[in-house]
């Protein structure tokens, strides 16, 4: 089905989409009857614990597990050599283009390259005993020189972490661009530049990772319950590493307690639990504890952006360039280093000449993986901080400067300097709405005076963004070596009661997929929302798909649901026409739980009767095959770009650097809204993570010891209910011409603009002091230091 044939909202006859209906997920979750992976208990299940390297970089000289093996209750101990003999390396699903492979196994081989890397695994009759056993395993480590800081890792003389594969710690460099940015820089009236430091953070889902592996001896069936965002991709990876045919593997993911990108791809523990289950012939469970989570589940964001903007004196941007350095950590995780800082490097601004270079650098820290935003929050902080700096340099209004440089509604589709096709939008309208809502004009005209009451300065900061949502077809992914497609799929099956079952490989990670899928199905098929069940995350029941990430699920699934519903409907109406003696099925319609004649409303038959006849296979029209289930696939041809503007209002004490966020506002567009309240939920959740990243979250490594110093819940600041400012949301809804229903993704957007808006608000407040914020998180201490440094520089 081409996009041109897809229904547009105006043509939809029902009122199921576009409204908030009770979520399908909620009843079970509210009763405590959700099924998270650790909620699944199996008789005789063994439990697994993993011994981890305590050093950032060490050679593993010897492992003596004899005392542990003798402990009562210990069932099996696996070391690196066992893993190398029994499995292949962990497959990389989204490699960095051009990067050499750094193969790694579920357990470290000769060398461990980060603190927390699994070294040995124990299965025992209880987790307590498994952990007791770890205490008894004597591992002789030879610590090696380490490097924690991403820029230090590039310096001459830095210890090379993967000397067998790389000559330095630079994994790869990916330059991309269009035009001649260097020439534009030379001829520009003004060039602003900055180095922006994005702290390493963690997504911190409330449910840690968990896996329960079951092996049925002789039947060759490995069933793996695991908390993942992409069950079918997990199955692919398990098959590759375990060298088991994927037909022999079933991955089951019922409820997932938050993903945020961290639960993409197989982790070492997934493989280890399978190995134990196979050799012990009994179920094996592993539940990551929180201290492990801080060290063994992928981190995000850490990068350094060297950004430059060249402009004419009237404010017109001539070129934008970004040379950025991403910290990879000690290994390349399956979804690896974030890649979207390149794709949306110019944000919403129209610039013909641009250059971006992505450099990926190995350090002795926990591997970086996907985290909500995947490079977009990082680069937004850089270019939006610089837009304010440019405005100050030119003496321009930062709102007008932004507005004059934005891609205009009549310029779409527009291709940015790295080839991203921006689909549609009205970027300036969002900016104007935000400026109006926060009283920008009054604030600007009032000038920068401290408040008489307390001496604090008020500042307003903006951040305008685009968010790449979904993938631009499998061709885009293939060109980058990604080992998955851009498609989604559904199977819809009718029941005798008149209800429908929808099967999807998407897993329920909180985003409301079951609800949205049911809403779409009810809309497209015509039946009642409450007669639809959505079954998620079971590879044994669902057609092959991609998974819950990249803000892509609704975009891709909408196309699959449209097609499956259309085919199911056609067959339903044919059978109903036969039952009613109506010659033309086109005169019939599904109305709630009946099929009804559109001209003669007394002519009707219950859906349950039609479905029963199809399922029984008796009394069908000549040539009609029994059964009523349809499977459809859809691959979006292009990505869609959500967009908007965030605004922050800050009050800053110039003496102490303390600040208060009076207000935070975001105007957001994700195309046609299918469920406005679920969208608000997604945006607010993303904003909370963005606020955490902006204001306090930072994983700190001691440069001397290479140890993570704040890897516990006690020491890592994740916002609570009383840590967040008041947040107002506003929306526009420009449909995307590239996607089914005109939808865009909404899953990651909240994370993107927060830090820049807050940084800009603080710098606006402190404009009389000439302060520039270039490092996250923004803490009172850092603001105070920035004030002190700028006053020193000016004296």
């Amino acid at each position: 089905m081409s996009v041109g044939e897809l229904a547009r909202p105006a043509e939809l006859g029902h009122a199921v989409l576009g409204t908030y209906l009770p979520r399908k997920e909620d009843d079970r979750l509210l009763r405590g009857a959700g099924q998270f992976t650790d909620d699944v208990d199996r008789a005789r299940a063994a439990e697994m614990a993993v011994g981890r390297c305590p050093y950032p970089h060490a050679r593993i000289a010897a492992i003596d597990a004899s005392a542990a093996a003798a402990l009562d209750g210990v069932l099996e101990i696996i070391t690196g050599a066992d893993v190398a003999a029994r499995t292949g390396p962990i497959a990389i699903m989204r490699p960095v283009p051009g990067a050499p492979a750094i193969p790694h196994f579920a357990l470290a081989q000769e060398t461990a390259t980060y603190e927390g890397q699994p070294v040995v695994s124990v299965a025992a009759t209880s987790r307590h005993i498994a952990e007791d056993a770890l205490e008894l395993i004597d591992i002789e480590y030879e610590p090696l020189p380490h490097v924690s800081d991403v820029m230090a890792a590039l310096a001459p003389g830095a210890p090379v972490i993967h000397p067998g594969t790389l000559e330095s710690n630079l994994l790869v460099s990916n330059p991309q661009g269009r035009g001649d940015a260097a020439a534009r820089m030379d001829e520009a009236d003004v060039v602003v530049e900055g180095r922006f430091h994005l702290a390493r953070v963690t997504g911190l889902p409330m449910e840690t990772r968990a896996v329960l592996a079951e092996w049925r001896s002789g039947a060759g069936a490995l069933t793996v319950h695991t908390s993942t965002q992409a069950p079918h991709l997990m199955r692919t990876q398990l098959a590759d590493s375990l060298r088991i045919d994927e037909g022999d593997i079933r991955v089951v993911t019922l409820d997932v307690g938050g993903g945020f990108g961290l639960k993409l791809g197989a982790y070492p523990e997934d493989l280890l639990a399978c190995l134990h289950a196979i050799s012990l012939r009994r179920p094996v469970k592993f539940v990551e504890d929180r201290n492990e989570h801080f060290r063994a589940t992928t981190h995000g964001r850490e990068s350094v952006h060297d950004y430059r903007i060249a402009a004419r004196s009237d404010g017109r941007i001539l070129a934008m360039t970004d040379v950025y350095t991403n910290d990879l950590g000690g290994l390349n995780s399956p979804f690896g280093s974030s890649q979207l800082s390149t794709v949306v490097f110019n944000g919403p601004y129209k610039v013909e000449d641009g250059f971006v270079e992505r450099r990926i650098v190995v350090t002795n820290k926990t591997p970086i993986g996907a985290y909500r935003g995947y490079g977009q929050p990082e680069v937004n902080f850089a270019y939006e901080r610089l837009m304010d700096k440019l405005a100050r340099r030119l003496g321009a209004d930062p709102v007008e400067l932004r507005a004059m440089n934005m891609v205009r509604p009549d310029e779409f589709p527009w291709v940015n300097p790295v080839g991203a096709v921006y689909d549609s939008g009205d970027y300036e309208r969002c900016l104007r709405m935000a400026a109006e809502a926060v009283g920008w004009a009054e604030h600007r005209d009032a000038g920068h005076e401290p408040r008489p009451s307390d001496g604090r300065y008020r500042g307003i900061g903006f951040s305008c963004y685009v968010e790449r949502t979904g993938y631009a077809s499998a061709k885009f992914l293939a060109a980058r070596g990604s080992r998955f497609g851009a498609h989604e799929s559904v199977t819809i099956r009718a029941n005798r009661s008149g209800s429908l079952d929808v099967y999807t490989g998407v897993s329920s990670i909180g985003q409301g997929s079951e609800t949205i899928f049911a809403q779409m199905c009810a809309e497209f098929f015509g039946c009642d929302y409450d007669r639809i069940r959505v079954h998620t995350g079971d590879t044994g029941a669902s057609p092959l798909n991609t998974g819950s990430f990249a803000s892509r699920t609704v975009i891709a699934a909408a196309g699959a649901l449209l097609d499956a519903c259309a085919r199911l409907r056609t067959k339903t109406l044919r059978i109903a026409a036969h039952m009613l003696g109506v010659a033309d099925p086109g005169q019939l319609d599904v109305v709630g739980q009946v099929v009804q004649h559109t001209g003669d409303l007394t002519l009707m038959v219950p859906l349950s009767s039609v479905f029963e006849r199809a399922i029984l296979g008796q009394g069908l029209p000549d040539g009609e095959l029994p059964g009523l289930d349809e499977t459809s696939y859809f691959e979006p041809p292009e990505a869609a770009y959500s967009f908007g503007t965030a605004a922050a209002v800050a009050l800053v004490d110039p003496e102490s650097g303390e600040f208060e966020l009076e207000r935070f506002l975001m105007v957001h567009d994700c195309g046609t809204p299918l469920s406005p309240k679920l969208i608000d939920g997604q945006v607010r959740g993303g904003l909370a993570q963005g606020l955490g990243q902006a204001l306090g979250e930072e994983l700190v490594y001691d440069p001397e010891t290479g140890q993570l110093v704040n890897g516990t819940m006690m020491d890592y600041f994740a916002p609570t209910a009383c840590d967040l400012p008041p947040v107002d949301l506003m929306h526009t809804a420009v449909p995307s011409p590239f996607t089914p229903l005109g939808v865009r993704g909404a899953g990651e957007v909240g994370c993107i603009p927060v830090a820049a808006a807050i940084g800009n608000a603080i710098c606006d407040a402190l404009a009389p002091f000439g302060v520039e914020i270039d490092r996250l998180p923004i803490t009172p201490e850092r603001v105070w230091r920035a004030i002190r440094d700028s006053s020193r520089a000016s004296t």
Partner: protein
Amino acid sequence: MNPADSDTARLGLPEPNVIVTTQVNGTSVTEQVPARLSAADFLRHRLGLTGTHVGCEQGVCGMCTVLVDGQAIKSCLMLAGQLDGCLVETVESLAAEGPLSPLQERFRDEHALQCGFCTPAFLMTTTALAASGRTWTRAELREELAGVLCRCTGYEFIVNAVEAHLAAGERNQPGD
């Protein structure tokens, strides 16, 4: 490695056990448990009450919040043995098979949950707040709820649901 497969040897383990007798959601329970078993793991894996979740095992995230003798406590910081003689209420007590309780309905209607992992903890915390009969400003409510983390929602809709529930003076019993 030679696995020491020794299920029977477990009987000889020097694992100290204790006997705990407690009333959970109105039902009396007596179990022999390892002395080091946490109350949260006892509820989850001995009694099958998996609505109580575990998120950090150090009393910060609040996922494991249950009511013990009416007080909202973090059950990861208690040992199962310490429940001896106590009255325990978990999320499963709010609505068994019947309709959702008024508080649960508020959460559903306000979209106060996404992944649902923290939801039982917020429900039990709010149940204790409601039982206290006190009133709170919205800012105070945010402080009261700060003992439970949520990474999905940004809290606004949770606070809305809790505030509406408390303002309406709803008894948090099923079928009301």
